[in-house]
């Protein structure tokens, strides 16, 4: 069991304890997620809180995917050691992109899971920990809801499920 480990110093992450991931898993997952949604004028996946989203759900609604993450992340690092002699998180961005393409090809079930969860975290409702400050919604040009302040659940602050 990974349990809750401190996530101090994790790339783009300053949320404190993880609910499920350990620090090493979080670093590897950050590398993968940030290739799925890289930074440009708008934040990368991890900068927008996608790891918080995934970690929270692995302790809640996605408990059934825990083994897939444990196995997938450790095999990603094993592949990285085999090819580059170091952890995935320590690779250059182009090397990480190649690694993610390889994971997509060789471990497509795991890749598809992480891709779905990353895009959910990035483009979904901010209340679940991703899409920080509704950044992806602003990116695509979606304005604030037409009637603000009416809903009792503000999408930026409401409790997660």
């Amino acid at each position: 069991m990974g349990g809750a480990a401190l996530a101090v110093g994790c790339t783009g992450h300053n949320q404190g304890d993880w609910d499920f991931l350990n620090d090493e898993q979080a670093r590897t997952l950050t590398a993968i997620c940030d290739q799925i949604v890289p930074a440009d004028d708008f934040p990368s996946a991890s900068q927008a809180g996608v790891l918080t989203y995934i970690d929270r759900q692995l302790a809640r609604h996605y408990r059934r995917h825990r083994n897939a993450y444990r196995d997938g992340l450790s095999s990603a690092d094993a592949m990285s050691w085999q090819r580059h002699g170091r952890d995935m998180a320590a690779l250059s961005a182009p090397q990480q992109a190649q690694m993610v393409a390889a994971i997509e090809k060789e471990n497509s079930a795991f890749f598809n899971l992480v891709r779905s969860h990353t895009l959910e975290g990035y483009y979904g409702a901010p209340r679940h920990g991703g899409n920080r400050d509704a950044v992806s919604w602003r990116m695509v040009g979606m304005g604030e809801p037409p009637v603000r302040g009416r809903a009792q659940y503000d999408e930026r602050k409401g409790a997660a499920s």
Partner: protein
Amino acid sequence: MKKVNAVVVGAGAAGGIVAKELSTAGLSVVLLERGRWYTANDCRKDDLRNQRTTVLGNAFGPDDEGNPRVVWDPQTGPRTLLPSEGGYQNNAACVGGGTLSYGAMAWRYMPQDFRMRSIYGAPAGSSLEDWPITYDDLEPWYEKAEYEIGISGDYSGSPFFGPRKRPLPMPPLAPNREFQILEPAAKRLGLHPFHIPMARNSVPYNGRGPCMRCRWCVGFACEVDAKNGSQNTVIPTALATGNCELRTECMAKEILTDDRGRARGVAYFDADGRLQEQPCDIVIVSACAIESARLLLNSKSRLFPNGIGNRHDQVGRHLQGHHYTGAVGFFDFDTYDDVGPGASIAVADYNHGTPGLCGGGALCNEFIRLPIQMIDRLPVNTPRWGLAHKKAMRSFYKRNIAVMGPTQPIPMADARITLDPAVRDKWGMQVARISGNVHPHTFEIGIVQAQRSEAWLKEAGAVSTVVNAGRPTTVSAGQHQAGTCRMGNDPQGSVVNRNCQVHDVDNLFVIDGSVHVTNGGFNPALTIMAIAYFASDSLVRNWNATGFRS
């Protein structure tokens, strides 16, 4: 428990209407609902947890805990699925049923939709049939549904629908930008565009205000209660009579019978999981096509060893829903104006009359796509991840229109609900197993419909398009599920008669989408409602104050 006149199982589109009609006629009614009663305050506008995008669960039931179903996929064999997983064919489990969170398209079927076999002949291997009732039989009840539930829209642009006596009670919402782009294009193609009929207030109606045109509509409860379902119309009316008691979080277990084979009550698990028996004179099953069939199949006794109403192995068969096809067009100008609900314009030119095709379907523009719903609907050759995917999201989110529609399904007898021999729910009851598919001709119709969608988008100025017309390996039932307790005159080939009365149990009725013989090329909600009024009317007329005259 004190005996009542009627128990209605399921407080959805049909069950709410039946409860209202019976209770206003003076019958005592218990309305059982397995889910909870949500209000407008429960509308959380959660993009990841609603009834359309369910990755974090269903907002309005059923819960993922303890409510599995089994789907028999020819490619993978049996799979046990959670309610929030695709393939489960979920509708909802709450007061209002699907009508709490639906998109609320509220169509009348066309006269031809009730006479499919006579018009087209049955494709080989299909179970295509005519209904035992006609459009004319239902017309007054369509009108009643339109006025009591509250429908806005305007059919006047389309010459293809059956005759009607009164216009819709509310005008359509003002056209959004997609409507303005698509309408002239449709006219240039010689089509007849019109305003989609919707169970949504466009003006104050029934004591509630109009739609505020937000983007969280289909899949969500309405924050301002402007979307009309049974939960905010007929069910409150039923309760106000004093004759109807609504019991929520009560899961029906079986229909109880006496030694002569008549229904005598319903056994159910209450909110605390205790088994209860509610005695009654008549039982109405309105649990939606999959669960209604399951309840009948689970109601076994000495006289009905294979389930009540199932003497001729018809319960659960002819499962259908709608196979959706269409296209997404990408534009070099903004098509998105953030004016909900989004879906606004339709053509019904293609529902019937194409040589070689057994029907067709309506084509409409889609509801507003939230960003999460766009991630796999980008132009051809867009990479699935990386900077190019992110840039495509940015470039096309506000520059696309989706046109799609429900294809008239051609039913098959072996598309069906049975009881899974192994998997049980949290109450220990056997769960529904879904197997089979609609007739392959359905997919041929769907391909043509997708091409027509693409042509409409191109005429409207789309610079590129993606065509969506698949061949799913299992039946797409979901929120449009229908057909499992078919209505017919022949007791050997159907489950209920034209009045929704089970052939060999005269005080047992199935009133919901289950009785649909075919499912039209339209969303089925208004037809389910019209049938509920039609069947309730005959039920009340045959009620003699102490019992039911068979």
